Each structure stands twice: as structure tokens, then as C-alpha cells.
């Protein structure tokens, strides 16, 4: 028994260490995001400027005024998507069941675009609308995929269909809106952390900061790993409720992230598996969220600075995420 306790303690220490390392990496990438660009700011000046330790108006404007919203959006949208993706994957017991692949993000995106172009609102109402869209989409997928329970693959295929439907409707809404330049509409539809408005970022930051502790606590309560539907039934009402609340939280996180940065593909899909690779199966939600933030920050740095022209973040995550997905399919097939 003692050796088991030792093992557990070791695993915990490893998890804490890896999580701390991920957090440090997020912080480092965050500072790099604030530092690079056509106006290069040395790293120490970034720290001085962010912490208001000194006064240099030009640097303060570039760092705090221009880059901070992008960097914040990247960190928090990454956290939100990483958490949400991992919650989906763990609760549905399928690595493909991430909200960006099955149409939850697309539902949020449709509602957000409609809010921007048809109702002309911005800020928190957009996030709220996106939440409505994501909930509708999730409910739709759930209802359509329900047939004496939810099997993983039917859920995912129906999700792909629902996703295509919402993408087409979003195209319709964009075509209807007259005051949108094609280019900005396309940037939005591909997802970009640079486009977030102040209101949407605030909604995102507040939601994520409140949701992370709640999600971590709920996840602990659930304890058991991936939950099949039968397992859920055996669990009793209180845990079933916790399960539903956790899913609701995940949908909320997807919604606020999508409202702020648009439908950035594949971050939610890859964050959990990356964390799992570092921590072993069923990684902590916090680690998965941080992995999401790392992916988002890195993708944005590549999209903004390493490519010949600055591109939406979603172009990079799409181009990098797809091969991963293919690899996932290939390897999971071999096992089955």
C-alpha cells in the first residue's frame, strides 16, 4: 500500500511540475508576443511596461495598447478551448469529440456573426449570443445523435454534418451583410486572435477565470475517467448533474472564445492529447488548458511573424491540426 501511495505522490509531483512548466511556457510566449513585431521591444522593456515600472509612451502604446489585446485573447481563448476540448473528449470518451470538430464552435460562430452583422451589437451581447448558438448546436447534435444512448462515432459524424450546416448558414449571413468587406469576413470565418474587440476580450477573461476553478473542482468530483453512457447511468443523479454542468461550462468556454477570436480550428482538439502525452492519460484540465494556450500563442506568432504575409491564426491551426487528426485516425485504427 505504501508503494502505491509513493507512486501516487510521484505522479502528482510530476503533474504539478509539468503544469508549472506549461504555465511558464505560456508566460514566456506571452511575453514574446508582446515583444515582437515591426516595432521591436526588448523583453525587459516589455516587463517594465506591463508592470508599469517605468514610463515610455511609445513602448507603452505598442505593448499595452496594441499587442496586449491580441496576447490576452490568445492566452485566454487558448485556455478556454483547451479546457473545453478536454472536457468534451473525457466526458464523451472519444479523442475526436472536440467542440471545434463537431460543430459547437460553428454554432457559436454563426450566432456571433449574426450578432455583428444583423443586430449590430458587440462586446458581452456577442458572447451571450455565441453561447446561445453553441448551446443550440450542442443540443441539436445530442438530440440527433441520440438513439438508445450516444455512441461516439455517430455523435461525431452527426457533429460534422451539423458543423457543415452552420458553416453554410454563416456564409449566408455574411453574404447578406452589406457593410462587411469580403476580406474582414474571411478573416473572421478563419478565426484570428488579432480581431478581438475590447468587450469580447473582457467577457472571455472573466469567464475563463471563473470557469477554470469550477471546472477543476467538478472534474475532481467526477473522479472516474472517461464516462460511457452506461457508467453515467450507474452514477446517480448528483454526479449526472455535475457531468451536465461540466459540459455546460465547456460549451460556455467555447462560446466566449469563439465570440472573441472566431472559429479557430483544432486548438480544442489537440490541447488535451498534448497534455496527455506529457502527463499520461486523463491529464488535469488545467494542464490541458495551458497546452491550448501554448498552441494558440505559437500559432499566432507563426501566423503573424514567420509567414510572408500576416494571416489569420486559424490558417495555421488548420494547416497544422489536420495532419495531427489524420495521424490520430491512422493510429487509433491500428489499435482497433
Amino acid at each position: 500500500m505504501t508503494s502505491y501511495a509513493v507512486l501516487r505522490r510521484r505522479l502528482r509531483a510530476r503533474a504539478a511540475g509539468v503544469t508549472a512548466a506549461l504555465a511558464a511556457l505560456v508566460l514566456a510566449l506571452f511575453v514574446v508576443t508582446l515583444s515582437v513585431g515591426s516595432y521591436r521591444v526588448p523583453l525587459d522593456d516589455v516587463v517594465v511596461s506591463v508592470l508599469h515600472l517605468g514610463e515610455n509612451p511609445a513602448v507603452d502604446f505598442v505593448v499595452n495598447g496594441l499587442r496586449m489585446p491580441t496576447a490576452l485573447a490568445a492566452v485566454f481563448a487558448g485556455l478556454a478551448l483547451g479546457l473545453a476540448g478536454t472536457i468534451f473528449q473525457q466526458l464523451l470518451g472519444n479523442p475526436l469529440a472536440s467542440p471545434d470538430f463537431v460543430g459547437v464552435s460553428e454554432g457559436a460562430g454563426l450566432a456571433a456573426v449574426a450578432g455583428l452583422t444583423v443586430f449590430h451589437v458587440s462586446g458581452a451581447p456577442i458572447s451571450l449570443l455565441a453561447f446561445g448558438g453553441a448551446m443550440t448546436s450542442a443540443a441539436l447534435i445530442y438530440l440527433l445523435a441520440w438513439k438508445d444512448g450516444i455512441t461516439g462515432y455517430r455523435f461525431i459524424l452527426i457533429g460534422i454534418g451539423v458543423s457543415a450546416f452552420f458553416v453554410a448558414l454563416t456564409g449566408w449571413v455574411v453574404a447578406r451583410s452589406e457593410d462587411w468587406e469580403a476580406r474582414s469576413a474571411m478573416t473572421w470565418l478563419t478565426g484570428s486572435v488579432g480581431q478581438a474587440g475590447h468587450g469580447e476580450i473582457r467577457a472571455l477573461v472573466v469567464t475563463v477565470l471563473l470557469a477554470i476553478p469550477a471546472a477543476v473542482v467538478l472534474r475532481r468530483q467526477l473522479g472516474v475517467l472517461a464516462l460511457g453512457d452506461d457508467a453515467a447511468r450507474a452514477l446517480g443523479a448528483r454526479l449526472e448533474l455535475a457531468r451536465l454542468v461540466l459540459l455546460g461550462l465547456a460549451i460556455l468556454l467555447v462560446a466566449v472564445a469563439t465570440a472573441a477570436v472566431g472559429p479557430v480550428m483544432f486548438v480544442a482538439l489537440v490541447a488535451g492529447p498534448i497534455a496527455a502525452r506529457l502527463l499520461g492519460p486523463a491529464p488535469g484540465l488545467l494542464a490541458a488548458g495551458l497546452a491550448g494556450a501554448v498552441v494558440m500563442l505559437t500559432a499566432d506568432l507563426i501566423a503573424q511573424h514567420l509567414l510572408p504575409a500576416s494571416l489569420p491564426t486559424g490558417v495555421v491551426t488548420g494547416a497544422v491540426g489536420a495532419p495531427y487528426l489524420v495521424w490520430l485516425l491512422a493510429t487509433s485504427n491500428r489499435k482497433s
Partner: protein
Amino acid sequence: MSGRVAGLAALLVVLVLTCGLSIVLGARDVSWHTLWSAFTAYDDHDTAQRVLREMRIPRTLLGLVVGAALGVAGSLLQGLTRNPLADPGIMGINAGAALAVVSGVMLLGVGSGPASVWLAFLGAAAATAAVYGIASLGRDGATPVKLALAGAALTAGMSAVTTGIVMTHIEALNALRFWQVGSLAGRYLPVFWQVVWFIAGALVVSLVAGRLLNGLALGEDVARGLGMRVGLVRAVLFATVALLCGAATAACGPIVFVGLVVPHVARMLCGPDYRWIVPYSMVIAPVLLLAADVIGRLALGRGELQVGVVLGVLGAPVFVGLVRYRGVAEL
């Protein structure tokens, strides 16, 4: 047998009517009388007649061949893969063709005109091979689920790269919407002539292939027992699919769901015999594509909605229905 012939004849009548609507409906009101005189007494100076002869009819012709190409490609794919979810759009074939054309034109500076059809063909062939190859890994082979998932994954990745390429070429931005979702708008006779021979040739091959598809439907071993060279047949038919999809995409951009929906409708009408499914698809698909195009012309009241968007809205529920009610996920 005679029932199937009658059904095909009835569908042809529907197709003719759809073409009529596609020719008559649009931003400019034209009368049936103008349509009549556009053929009997064509007057170069009558703009209404010109609109018919040089804009609506070419557009309708393009819809006809592209629709037929996509519908037949879908039925070939479903037969080849014995998979009810096979669709050139869902499997990423059209996205592959689009990526090849965009890369050729914008990065290498080659491929406008007929060369773009060849590029699209290569892209389509590569995507078909990739999706099928990925899905075939593992013991259970290329199941519908794995094909759809691999297709969705590749589509997402390739569309992201296509968007990236187009967005870095500001002057090509006008074309961006076109390369993201397909459209029949603004492409007149030259585009039609570019692709029509490719498509016509591939359609002839497909019509002949009905019996081979029936053989494949019995399973590989049985087909081999019947003396069929399964490997060769598959290779030729996959190439035909790639040619059909490549030509269609080169002309109109990536269009999804036509190839998915149409063979199922055909199967409902004429049963599981591919000698009939292929010609039925060839007639039903243009009806669907042209009808969606007409809806797109009228839906906004101002400007046009691309046919690809209309098909997404119409086709996605069919996909969901197939997954739910045909028990696909259990396969």
C-alpha cells in the same frame, strides 16, 4: 425495366423544366416569348436575348455538366468504397482540387485555362488517394466512419492552406469566396468549353462501368471469381472520379453534398443496380445543382448567394439523416 426507363424519362422532363427555370429566372425579368425568339429570331442587339444566350444559357450548361460530374462521381465513389457516406466534397476531393488550382495559379504562375483542369485533376487524385489510404489503415479497412473523418480532417487542413495562399495575394481576393465555396456565377462559355470534354469523356466511362460496380458491390472475392480484374477496375474508376471532380472544381470551385445526396435519391428511385444508378444520378444531380443555383439567385433579393452555400444548407440535413436513419455509424 420499363418502369426504370419511364422514371428516367420523367426525370429528364424535370431536368428540362429546371433548365427552363434556370434560364428564365434571375436579376432580369425575361418572358418565355423572349426565350423563344432568342432561338428562332436571334437579335444581337436585343439585350434580353443576349442575356439569355450569353449569360443564362452558358451558366445553365455549366450547371448541367458540373452537376452531372459531381453526381456521377458520388455514385462511383459510393460503389467503389461500398460506403453510403462517400461524397467528393465530404471526402476532401474537391478541396484537394481547389488547393491544387490555387497553388498552381498563385504560387507557380501556371494553370489558368485548360491547364487548371489538369492541376485540379492531379489535386483531386492526390486527395482521393490520401483520404482512401488513411482510412484504409487498420484491420477493418476503409469504413464509412473513417472515410468521413479522414475527409473532414483533410478538408479542414487543405481549406486552411487555400485560404492562406489566397489571402496573401491581395489582387486575387475577389476569387477567395469562389475558392472557399463553389459558385456558378460569372463564368460563361469559355469555362464551359474548358471542362466539357473532360467531363463528357469521364461520363461515358462511368456509364459503361455500371456492371463493374455491380460486380464490386458483391465483394472483392466474388468479383474476382467472376473474372474481373479488381485492381485495374478500381484504379480506372478512381481516376475517373478524380477527373470528374477535378474538372467540376476547376470550373466552379469546391461544391459539397451533390455527390452525397444524389446517388441516394437515385437508389431510392431505381434500386441498387449501378447500371441504373449512374444514369439516374447523371440526371438528378444537375436538377439539384441548378435548383440550388436558382434559389441562390433569388434568396438575397440583392446580389447572389453562391450555390455552394445553398447546397450546404440543403445537404447537411441529408447527411445527418443518413447517419441517423441508415444506421451508418454501426457499419
